[in-house]
């Protein structure tokens, strides 16, 4: 009796300690988020402006520009106390930004158009990726050498808005997405392709394609359909904000964009270092994979023949193509409105002005 009383007392004490540590760790997480590692602490006196950035996915080199800018203290130099929120399968950046959980979000253009068309007051204010990273990858053995060969195959997508480039690719090649082949939901690993449960899988150049290579397959074992080559590319990672917020915080956003561009430029110039910076934030994947990703992402942000000074540039023709494809393949029910109120490059112009 006495002994069990003692152990239970111990258990209660442990429980209380756990709660206490939980609370304190919560606090410390909040305070350490904005740490700049380099000593660039020459901010003007006065408080930093708090800015929260909502990523579309987990912390990884896909977002290396922001992490580099954070690590090098570029945001701090711009008078910004940045907090970077990781995404996840249940995190929808458009909703987070509209609700005010975050000030600025990263999402794909087509997805943003959808929200805008439903009445959400969001505006696109910068285009980070100039190219589509979406691939359809199959094993060379399955003989899918052109989009037409997808007929009768099982094709994976993540859905939730990620399926429209594939729809466009199919239709451009005279295939019906419902009758000519089977579309299935794929998870966030490449296991279904490796296990031959699907014939072709969606893959991002910078992430999943790398996973396939890391799993032991060689480039020669794989066949790739690239959306850019097929002329059905839709724009991906862009920056957007709530229209009400930007009306009051124009200067703050321009400062943010300027610092971010600086971070991106540095990251793209030295992806190895950028991969390391991201790895220091989150060690869930190997350093090698982060570096691989950083190199691939650099190709999307600064494609061949693209002036690095123009990072974040909004190519209205590419945005229009994204809108047209989204309308044609059913994501949008009416044409996207592309105007100063929905897609505006004026902040980018200010941020890049000498």
């Amino acid at each position, binding site marked *: 009796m006495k002994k069990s009383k003692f152990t239970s007392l111990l258990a209660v004490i442990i429980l209380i300690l756990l709660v206490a540590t939980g609370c304190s760790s919560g606090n410390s997480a909040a305070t350490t988020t904005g740490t700049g590692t380099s000593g660039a602490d020459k901010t003007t006196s006065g408080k930093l402006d708090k800015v929260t950035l909502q990523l579309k996915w987990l912390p990884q080199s896909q977002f290396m520009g922001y992490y580099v800018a954070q690590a090098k203290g570029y945001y701090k130099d711009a008078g910004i106390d940045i907090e970077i929120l990781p995404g996840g399968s249940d995190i*929808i950046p458009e909703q987070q930004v509209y609700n005010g959980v975050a000030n600025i979000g990263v999402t794909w253009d087509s997805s943003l158009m959808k929200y805008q068309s439903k009445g959400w007051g969001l505006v696109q204010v910068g285009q980070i990726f100039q190219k589509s990273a979406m691939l359809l990858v199959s094993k060379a053995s399955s003989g899918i050498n052109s989009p037409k060969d997808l007929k009768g195959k099982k094709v994976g997508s993540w859905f939730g808005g990620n399926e429209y480039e594939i729809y466009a690719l199919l239709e451009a090649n005279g295939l019906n997405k419902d009758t000519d082949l089977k579309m*299935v*939901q794929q*998870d966030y690993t490449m*296991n279904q392709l490796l296990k031959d449960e*699907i014939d072709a899988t969606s893959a991002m150049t910078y992430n999943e394609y790398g996973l396939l290579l890391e799993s032991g397959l060689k480039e020669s074992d794989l066949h790739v359909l690239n959306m850019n080559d097929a002329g059905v590319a839709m724009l991906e990672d862009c920056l957007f904000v709530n229209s009400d917020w930007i009306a009051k915080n124009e200067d703050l956003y321009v400062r943010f964009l300027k610092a971010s561009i600086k971070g991106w430029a540095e990251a793209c110039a030295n992806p190895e270092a950028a991969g390391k910076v991201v790895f220091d934030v989150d060690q869930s994947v190997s350093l090698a994979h982060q570096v691989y990703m950083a190199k691939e992402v650099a190709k999307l942000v600064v494609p061949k023949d693209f002036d690095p000074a123009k990072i974040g540039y909004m190519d209205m023709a590419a945005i229009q193509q994204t809108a047209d494809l989204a309308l044609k393949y059913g994501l949008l029910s009416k044409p996207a409105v592309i105007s100063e109120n929905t897609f505006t490059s004026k902040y980018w112009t200010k941020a890049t002005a000498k």
Partner: protein
Amino acid sequence: MKSKVITILWPLAFGIALILAWQFGLFHKVLDLKPFQLPVPSEIASTLAANLPKALKDCGVTISGALVGMIIGSLMGFMIAAIATFFPKWGYGGMIVVTALNAVPIVALSPIMNLWFSTGMEQKIAVVTVVCMAAMAINGYSGLNNINPYSIDLMHSVAASEWTIFKKLRFPNSLPYIFTASKINIASSIIAAIISEYFAASTSGLGFGIKDNLRKAEMAMGWSYIVVASLAGVILYCVILLVERDALKWHASQK
């Protein structure tokens, strides 16, 4: 009779008041939401009506997976409980293992089952099976063993075999516990099926519908799926209650 009517009327009135408050924007005002963030009931209803065949088909996929999984899981759980009863010394360890399995979160279970099974349906059934097994094993074990010692003495006095005791005494005694477990499992099987569909290699089912539509800003459609999922759960729960009422006429809880 009068009290029965009241039992139904009060919650019904409350529900109608809730829906009206929702419809006429009270929630939107209090929570400062726009209709495109939180669709009103009439919009959900019309969206559901327009997409009824698809919603029902998806509902069928999810519910059939949930039911098959629940039946398999419940049978396995009860078998474990029975084995633990027949071999008390060694069998009880099996119960602890099942309980531990129950502590594995569904979100971790789904991807594991995705590896083991190739189709969405198999994966869903496997997840639901594991989720339902524990509740049935634990409750079944209680029912098979929480027995008045005199009843067992009576059985021994007529030299009944262990099997006879199981058939005539332990099993009937466990029925109320089995129904308790079934009521728990109805809710958890549907939720498990829906969660498993978030990860499944399939584009049908309520879980896929909820997730896909909520991501794509089709809030009304997403809510339609939520409504269908909840309704299906409530209906199945009522079915279990009815079966229980007929099967357990002798039990005090039914009076």
